[in-house]
């Protein structure tokens, strides 16, 4: 309870103080990092900006060949734990039930539309589900995992290779599920998303999962995104509406 109070009462104030104390702010791991280096994609690259939605949201992630993900023994045990709990009606085992940020790739599979906003400065995903956003800068590779604090959405880098947008992410916490059925992951998770316009209204995508804690080998899932012309993102507030 005390932590919650600190969050609601003191955090805004603390942030202001941290702004006044750059040395402290740098240690906080928050916004006060040293000046970032901004890179830009080459001029004339494919623009992925637009309103998008997953063609088959939710559900269970399979490999590109349609098989089960290569869970190792620890992964199988953890997955079984999640599935048993859900089947017995214990939905709080699902982090999304508590309105926590969905993590990657689950966020992409949420049954809500999202925006991709591509600029020379960065690449932003804005998801309708619980007004969640991801800001990704243009770099060849993400930071070293040991250099970042674990977060729900990870630390990502975006680049464009020919007609394909590639996002590499590291630095995840282990508080999210990979899919809606409870596929687990640990903090060593790395994710590579690839987006290719197969026609002006369709993105053919893949997401590659590498996590030695729970999987015996890296594996890749496929997805399709469809453009949503005329759609306006609505306000979705999980804490207000989510009643499992």
């Amino acid at each position: 309870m005390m932590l919650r109070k600190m969050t609601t009462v003191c955090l805004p104030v603390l942030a202001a103080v941290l702004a006044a104390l750059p040395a402290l702010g740098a240690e906080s791991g928050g916004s006060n990092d040293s000046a970032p280096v901004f890179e830009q994609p080459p001029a004339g690259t494919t623009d992925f900006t637009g309103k998008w939605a997953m063609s088959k949201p939710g559900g269970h992630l399979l490999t590109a060949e349609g098989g089960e993900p290569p869970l190792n023994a620890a992964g199988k045990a953890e997955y079984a734990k999640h599935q048993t709990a859900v089947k017995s009606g214990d939905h709080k085992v699902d982090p999304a039930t508590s309105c926590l940020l969905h993590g990657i790739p689950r966020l992409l599979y949420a049954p809500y539309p999202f925006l991709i906003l591509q600029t020379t400065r960065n690449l932003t995903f804005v998801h309708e589900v619980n007004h969640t956003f991801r800001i990704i800068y243009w770099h060849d590779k993400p930071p070293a995992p040991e250099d970042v604090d674990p977060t729900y959405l990870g630390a990502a880098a975006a680049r464009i290779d020919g007609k394909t947008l590639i996002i590499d992410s590291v630095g995840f916490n282990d508080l999210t599920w990979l899919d809606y059925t409870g596929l687990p992951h640990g903090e060593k998770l790395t994710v590579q998303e690839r987006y290719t316009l197969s026609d002006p209204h369709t993105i053919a995508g893949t997401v590659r999962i590498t996590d030695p804690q729970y999987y015996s080998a890296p594996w890749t899932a496929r997805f399709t995104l469809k453009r949503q012309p005329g759609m306006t993102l609505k306000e979705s507030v999980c804490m207000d509406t989510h009643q499992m």
Partner: protein
Amino acid sequence: MRRPAWLIVACLALSIASLAQEGAPAPAQTGDPAARAAARDKRNAEDALTWNKNPAPKDPRDFSGVWWTRGYDRTFRPVSDTPMPPDASARLLPMTPLEAASRQHHLDMEKAGTPIADAPTQCFPHGIPRLMASPYPIEFVYAPGLITILHEVAHNVRFIHMDGKAVPADTARSFLGYSVGHWEGDTLVIVTDHFNDRTQIDEESLSHGLQLKVTERMTKFTNKYGGVEIRNLITIEDPEHFTKPWTAERLYPWRGDIQIAEYSCEENNRNAPVNGISVAK
């Protein structure tokens, strides 16, 4: 939600420290005013250098990038030429009797140690203009027909519709309302309505109803230290709560030295419903 006294004292101390950053009341009577002003000038010039490492866009209509208000002021007050403490400036508020009573109730409850929990304490979006006072960085992202403002605090997102279309007839009421923007010269004018009545105007005490309409006028300028800032003049109209429109101000300095961080309000929220039941008491 009762707050222990030590916490309020600690936060007050932190608030004072953060306000001191604003420059206005310098640390307790040390040095003469000229020396304090010189120190403030020096710090502001150093800040501008650091914050301009990645420069702000030159186009006066391009706000793309990160901005971060200095310090934190938990009250909204009408802009006035004379600086004055919050209690004095509260007399400038054109409150209706309804709002005057409501405000007094907020102040009384806080004084009693049982403050009224407003939307952000439950991880709901802050509301407008409350969100625009938040002491966290914000980022503007431009796309055709749309300006998106990403707020670090509790991952709030504002969409400013710039496509010239009217508000859709079926627009639902929401915490952040529906925003339509246009340019008047180099000033971005944002009109927001369709609010619900579940947020406050400011953190301290001011309320609003369903008739709230907020007009923001945002202009980019270069200050005397070479730093770039957006000035936001925020006009609040709500005939139930205020006898006439009034205008408050917030400034957002350019911050080329930082990026927006992840912020999970929900992580520690004991109000999160589990199986439809709120566990917080």
